[in-house]
């Protein structure tokens, strides 16, 4: 799964640490998501969408390999 967390973060001009505090997770989690190492839960995805003021589907997009 691809995500545009880094892009959204740049738009809002906030650091990983800022976003971590807003989403109430650790900075490591934000970093792992941006690197595609971790797929967040639905709750965290919705939190991120609310923070960035966009729809969840605007942040996360399915890839071919997600159907395997």
């Amino acid at each position, binding site marked *: 799964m691809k995500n545009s967390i880094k892009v959204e973060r740049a738009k809002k001009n906030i650091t990983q640490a800022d976003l971590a505090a807003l989403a109430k997770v650790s900075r490591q989690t934000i970093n792992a998501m941006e690197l595609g190492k971790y797929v967040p839960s639905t709750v*965290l995805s919705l939190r991120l969408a609310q923070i960035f003021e966009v729809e969840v589907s605007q942040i996360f997009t399915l890839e071919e390999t997600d159907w395997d």
Partner: protein
Amino acid sequence: MKLNYLFPNKYKKIGWLLFIPSAIIGLATLIFEFEPNSLDFNVPAIFIDEFFGDKHFMGIVNNNILNEILAVLIILSSLLVAFSKEETEDEYISKIRLESLVWAVYLNYAILLISFLFIFDMSFLWVMILNMFTILLFFMIRFNCQISKLKKSTRYEK
């Protein structure tokens, strides 16, 4: 997400403070077979199988309680270290916790299988004693390594 099967974060430090000395002392008493007479007590037992006697349930046996004290301390403290929350316990940390636990169980039983096949008689007693504690120990090592690796990898990122 609320996790109610973990201890608060402060117990992790308490766990380490208890675990390290009791593990060192425990290992030392095991190797040197240290059993001070002052700790010989008559204690209640659920099952008794005497060397030259019969087997029966419920009774009193004379026993050196030093190893009991140390084993209880080691088990309780390693539970605290293993299952206390991280400073920011979130879903990614939970995932790493679970993966580390599976990894520790695999490793523990791999070692136990090899020991079953290649270690015999009284030597196997050592395996059984150590194996009581190794699952949690392997988990603690794995989990803390993973967490510190994670922290290192994000230290310089903006």
